[in-house]
């Protein structure tokens, strides 16, 4: 009899084999919604057009947090994705128009091997793994999400940045046919984010294709996004079509709107307040009820292993 063993000797089931309660409840809710949608004969714009395919991957136990994962339902209905509207529920309602396949990502700039990679090829570039990360939004709420993907450093290595590359820019799709929120002038489109090359190369920086053991829902940044867990959520660009390696620091979307409120670094930092609210505490979505005080926010969102990236930097100045 063949007994398969994982390299680390611990047999963990694939996440797809243990369907979390929240997920199947979410599916049931979806089925009800879908039935209602049929009754309404297509008047509703459902982001859940069909059940998403699985995206199984072995959990990497080096990248898990003890916190309880947020319910799938909450993580997929309470989103900031302004390309689909500024309301938290807008992405879940309206992201159904996003066509996540076919999809390609252009790799450009200061690299030896610029190329356009199809998302199917990107998926196979490195072994997928599941990691459970805390997500802290600059607005003062947080979630805990199981992502599926691999370290962005795998892709960076494959395209061979040259000696001039110091920053990496991530550009989100901006197609008015697929994204009804682009009519709004809240932000300059396309949504652009960026990291220093060493931040992008940090093993924590994830190129993600899935969450909760399934492919990314549109409203969460399908088909491919980055996840930088020690920075405020807006740094983690969604639905990426372009990754550009640059000599100079890119201008990023929120920084262009309000440079005093959203810095280029935007590391989670309880000591540095947002001008309009304190960042010392956060509301964990789905945790407790009316009588649960907020949680204390942790420096670098608890990911102290990134501290060495900022040695000697005044993080109050470079917020």
């Amino acid at each position, binding site marked *: 009899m063949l007994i398969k063993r994982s390299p680390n000797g611990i047999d963990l089931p694939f996440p797809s084999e243990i369907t979390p309660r929240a997920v199947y409840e979410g599916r049931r809710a979806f089925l009800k919604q879908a039935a209602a949608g049929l009754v309404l004969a297509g008047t509703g714009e459902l982001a859940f057009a069909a059940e998403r395919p699985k995206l199984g991957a072995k959990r990497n136990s080096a990248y898990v947090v003890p916190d309880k994962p947020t319910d799938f339902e909450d993580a997929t209905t309470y989103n900031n994705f302004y390309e689909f509207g500024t309301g*938290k529920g807008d992405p879940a309602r309206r992201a159904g128009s996003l066509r996540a396949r076919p999809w390609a990502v252009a790799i450009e700039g200061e690299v030896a091997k610029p190329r356009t990679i199809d998302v199917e090829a990107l998926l196979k570039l490195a072994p997928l793994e599941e990691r459970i990360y805390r997500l802290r939004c600059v607005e003062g709420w947080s979630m805990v999400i199981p992502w599926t993907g691999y370290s962005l450093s795998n892709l960076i290595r494959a395209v061979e940045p040259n000696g001039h590359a110091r920053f990496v820019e991530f550009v989100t799709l901006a197609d008015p046919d697929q994204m009804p929120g682009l009519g709004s002038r809240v932000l300059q489109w396309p949504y652009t984010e960026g990291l220093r090359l060493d931040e992008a190369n940090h093993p924590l920086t994830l190129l993600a294709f899935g969450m909760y053991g399934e492919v990314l829902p549109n409203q969460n940044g399908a088909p491919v996004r980055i996840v930088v867990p020690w920075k405020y959520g807006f740094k983690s660009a969604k639905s990426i079509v372009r990754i550009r390696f640059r000599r100079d620091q890119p201008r990023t979307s929120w920084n262009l*709107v309000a440079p005093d*409120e959203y810095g280029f670094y935007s590391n989670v930092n309880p000591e540095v307040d947002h001008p309009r*609210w304190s960042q010392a505490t956060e*509301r964990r979505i*789905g945790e407790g009820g009316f009588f649960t005080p907020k949680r204390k926010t942790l420096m670098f969102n608890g990911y102290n292993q990134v501290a060495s990236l900022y040695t000697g930097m005044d993080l109050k100045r470079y917020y």
Partner: protein
Amino acid sequence: MQPRQLAWTKRAVFLLGLLPFVRLFVLGATEGLGANPLEAITHGTGSWALYFLCITLAVTPLRRLTGWNWLIRLRRMLGLYAFFYASLHFIAFLWFDHFFDLEAMWRDVRKRPFITVGFLAFVLLLPLAATSTDAAVRRLGRRWQRLHRAIYLIVPLAVLHFWWMKAGKNDLGEPLLFAVIVAVLLLTRVIAWRRRVRAGAAA
């Protein structure tokens, strides 16, 4: 309008004004407020405070426009509903944002301009709510009206609070709408006042 009709109208308006509260309460008790119910309550009560402030300010221009003088009989209840939702909004802020830590709340009030103006608007509403009884109206006489003109300051402060809250997200569509509504409502006062002055000068 007959007194009986007016009594029924008042009852209807009372029930209508209570609806947003009942809705928040029921949804809050049945997990119907989405992923962040505390935020939904804070935003919901704040919005309704602003709606009722605008409705209250609309009573006099609407009365002048339509000649329905009975509308004035609803104004006190509408103003008190504005105060009711503003109080819930303040309690939500004190409870959910600061978990009743008065010192932390006070730091927030002093440090952040959008909270400063919101807090100021709420504090200024307190004497108006306290002097809303018939007895207070009688006792204060002409001073009652002067005191209640504070509403002309309170409503712009509330709009500013909303504006600055949304400014960080550069999402100014709704605040702009309310700024325009309030500007129009206040402008009708200025026009009416100038007419009165001119009529007085002519006489």
